[in-house]
């Protein structure tokens, strides 16, 4: 049944995304795109964009969006519930252990070693988004028609604004979008 599938997929996303925010990206990608094909990579990238511009965690946004696209409001509720349930259980157990023993060193040790793995997995998600943006067929070959110069230009500009000018990420993304709209309008109307 689709509701159970949605629930279980997002249960896994909720249970294994340590580190918050971007850490959920590789897990969402693995379940929603690679395993169940509920979204295309382009939809997924749009979803991240939308998530950045609306309040709320990416995982919850993804659960609501995917659930709704696949099975309407009941689908979004099943997915969101799946996403939140592991949090409820883990947080409660940890809080209970904490009030009992006042010692979180094991959990913090585990977290310390998870952090580099999370960085690596976010990098993978980033590469999965950038490759098809830079190359039409998604593989890094510089044949004519495959390599897209404009997105690379936007990317370099965005990196500059983010790193050197410390600009707000949402503004940076909107600027990239506006640049593309301007370009396409110019091509269409001139």
């Amino acid at each position, binding site marked *: 049944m689709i509701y159970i599938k949605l629930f279980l997929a997002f249960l896994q996303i909720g249970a294994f995304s340590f580190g918050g*925010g971007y850490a959920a990206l590789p897990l969402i990608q693995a379940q929603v795109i690679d395993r169940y094909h509920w979204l295309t990579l382009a939809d997924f990238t749009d979803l991240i964009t939308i998530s950045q511009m609306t309040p709320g965690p990416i995982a919850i946004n993804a659960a609501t969006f995917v659930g709704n696209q696949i099975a309407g409001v009941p689908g979004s509720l099943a997915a969101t519930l799946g996403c939140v349930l592991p949090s409820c259980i883990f947080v*409660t157990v940890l809080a209970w252990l904490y009030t009992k023993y006042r010692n979180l060193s094991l959990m913090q040790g585990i977290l310390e070693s998870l952090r580099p793995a999370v960085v690596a997995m*976010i990098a993978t998600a980033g590469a999965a988004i950038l490759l098809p943006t830079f190359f039409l067929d998604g593989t890094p070959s510089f044949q004519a028609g495959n390599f897209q110069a404009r997105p690379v230009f936007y990317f370099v500009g965005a990196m500059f604004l983010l790193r050197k000018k410390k600009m707000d990420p949402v503004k940076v993304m909107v600027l990239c979008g506006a640049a593309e709209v301007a370009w396409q309008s110019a091509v269409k109307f001139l």
Partner: protein
Amino acid sequence: MDDPLKETKKGVLKKLFFSTLYLSAFTFGGGYVIVTLLKNKFVDELHWIDEDEMLDLVAIAQSSPGAIAVNGAIVVGYKLAGLPGILFASLGAVLPPLVILTLVSYFYAAFRSNFIIQGMLSGMRAGVGAVIISVVYDMGSSVAKSKDALLLAIMAVSFAANYFFNVSVVYIVLLVAAIGAVRTIVRERRKDKTT
């Protein structure tokens, strides 16, 4: 510190729900922002939790899997009102994104076929990629600064396993968590021996 029990139980739950609802609806910029705001609300404004304990609650929220904002709401809810507190706090935290993304989802198809939106979204892809790479750079350089060979090895091997060999994220998380647990236990044993 005021005792939250001075309030009626109903009053605490109501305040929990509306605080988390409000924070979740109006905070952009990810989980860490919301954790700061939870502290402002429950430590500085309401005095229901003291500062040191709040730091530990934040550590619990960060140590658990899932969205930090939701975890933060849950742990504060648990601390103030037990299981009903968890229910009301997490409901408050989840409701705003649930409603907003439901609306977005309904209009997505129409949205997507609009010429301007289409251009916006496709241009923003490069921007999203840049934001993610920038986050990776920040987090990666803080790992690199630790000069901890094991952590660096974990980072390199996880990337290779995930990117080149398509090893499932779940297995990587489980394996690395086990490595971290063993390491912490060994470290603590050593500390016990020397003292």
